[in-house]
């Protein structure tokens, strides 16, 4: 990793050996640019890059590409999320070129939540290629300067390639191998699903380190502060692939309702502290879902400020 692959801020931060801190922001369910830009301000200067979700949970929102461009204009660095559910290979390659042209330098490659979860379950899904193949495609376009069909790209898109990893989905024993496949496909960095089960992530990261995977990619641990016990309960029951230990729900319930948000943040901060020391973890991906205005406080208390300038 001597030369920069994309020149993105996130890449530079990670390459310089800093503990990365990324955020997340969902585009609006409408064309409300003002509100979006207001949300950006909470993230500016507090994170290295911000994931812009792509019709997350299959609910229609402003396009992640457009919202990423708005973010570039505001002087923040987006991590442009792309799902395979809504685009075939033509649209995918064209959007990657477009993203580069608009100054976007990070991409997170995802399969996408199934449309049955969303607000248009009647939709036809695409899944022309899957997330693993998307990673390999972005890498091919960047490193070989070629389209999927082998034709040359005149100016190849330079992207820092991200992928997701959910250590809490099944079959657990296979998850580390799937991660290895994503790294082989070309993932420069990994952002994990929200972590709540610390015992399990410790075990998982040990496996990752044993296989030497942390030396081939940067792994950012996913953290979501719980707003209250109800949110924890809901996520535990209804969000697929979530592993929320009863002990956490109990801990949130043990305090007064008014103090549950603070307790959730405290747990998240404890997690960040542990991840700073955990072998193989290169940073934290803070997903403060619809809680962007708390990010400055969380970043401050997590002692990750100021963000490095590289």
């Amino acid at each position, binding site marked *: 990793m001597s030369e920069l692959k994309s020149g993105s801020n996130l890449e530079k931060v990670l390459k310089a050996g800093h503990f990365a801190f990324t955020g997340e922001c969902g585009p609006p369910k409408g064309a409300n640019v003002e509100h979006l830009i207001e949300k950006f301000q909470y993230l500016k200067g507090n994170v290295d890059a911000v994931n812009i979700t792509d019709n997350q949970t299959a609910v229609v929102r402003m396009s992640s590409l457009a919202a990423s461009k708005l973010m570039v204009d505001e002087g923040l660095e987006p991590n442009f999320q792309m799902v395979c559910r809504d685009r075939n290979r033509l649209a995918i390659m064209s959007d990657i070129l477009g993203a580069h042209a608009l100054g976007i330098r990070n991409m997170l490659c995802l399969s996408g939540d199934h449309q049955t979860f969303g607000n248009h379950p009647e939709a036809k899904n695409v899944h022309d290629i899957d*997330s693993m193949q998307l990673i390999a495609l972005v890498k091919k376009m960047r490193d070989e300067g070629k389209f999927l069909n082998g034709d040359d790209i005149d100016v190849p898109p330079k992207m820092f390639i991200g992928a997701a990893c959910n250590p809490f989905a099944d079959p657990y024993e*296979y998850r580390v191998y799937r991660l290895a496949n994503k790294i082989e496909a070309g993932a420069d960095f990994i952002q994990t699903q929200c972590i709540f089960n610390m015992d399990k992530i410790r075990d998982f990261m040990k496996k990752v380190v044993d296989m030497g995977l942390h030396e081939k990619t940067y792994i950012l641990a996913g953290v979501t502060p719980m707003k209250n016990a109800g949110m924890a309960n809901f996520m535990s029951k209804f969000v697929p692939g979530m592993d929320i230990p009863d002990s956490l729900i109990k801990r949130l319930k043990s305090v007064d309702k008014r103090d549950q948000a603070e307790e959730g943040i405290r747990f998240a901060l404890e997690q960040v502290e542990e991840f700073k020391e955990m072998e193989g973890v290169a940073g934290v991906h803070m997903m403060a879902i619809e809680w962007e205005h708390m990010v400055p406080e969380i970043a401050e208390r997590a002692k990750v400020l100021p963000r490095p300038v590289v």
Partner: protein
Amino acid sequence: MIVADRKSLEEILAMVKDNKKILIAGCKGCVTVCNVGGLKEVEILASSIKIARKKEGNDIEIDIEVLERQCDTEYVAGISETVGDYEAVISLACGVGPQFLSEMYKDQTFYPGVNTTFFGGATQHGVWEERCAGCGTCAIHNFGGLCPIARCAKSLMNGPCGGSSNGVCEINKDTECIWDSIVRKKMEAGRLEDLLGVKGIKDWQTARDGGPRRSIREELVQGNI
């Protein structure tokens, strides 16, 4: 086999609401095996329609016929003498049947009485499940003999996704995560290495995406194609 479900009586009754004399045509192929379009089901539909129409005081005359197969012109030709006697025909064959009928008998109206759903088989009496997506490039041997194109909700070639939980797909607790089964089968066989590395991007030209498909067995063709 091709699996289908019968349309609702409401929908079928609306199709033939203006007709006084119809034919219901079953098929002895797949739809007989999946109990939706064989002799029994043809008779049940005929009786159900008659009950409805008698209730309205608007009797309907219904004849029934069960073709050997509705997907072969020689059997479709079997009703050439009588097909013109009816105001309309309801076919209980898969989607192929009413099309072969429509193509041969251009002046007759053929209504589909079933919704054709998938290629599959019976996992127990009365329960059918999808197994094949007819993508035109079979590679199930690479996946422990299980098809992720047909059986993974996202048709992932490199699964399982992050929504797999206890062998169940994220979309529905009654849907098996086929990738869970593929991975476990490989692990039990000590052949996990088969799943390492990235499975390449699929060529969908052989699937429906390449346009309507045609199979030709030249040694069987008589005359010009």
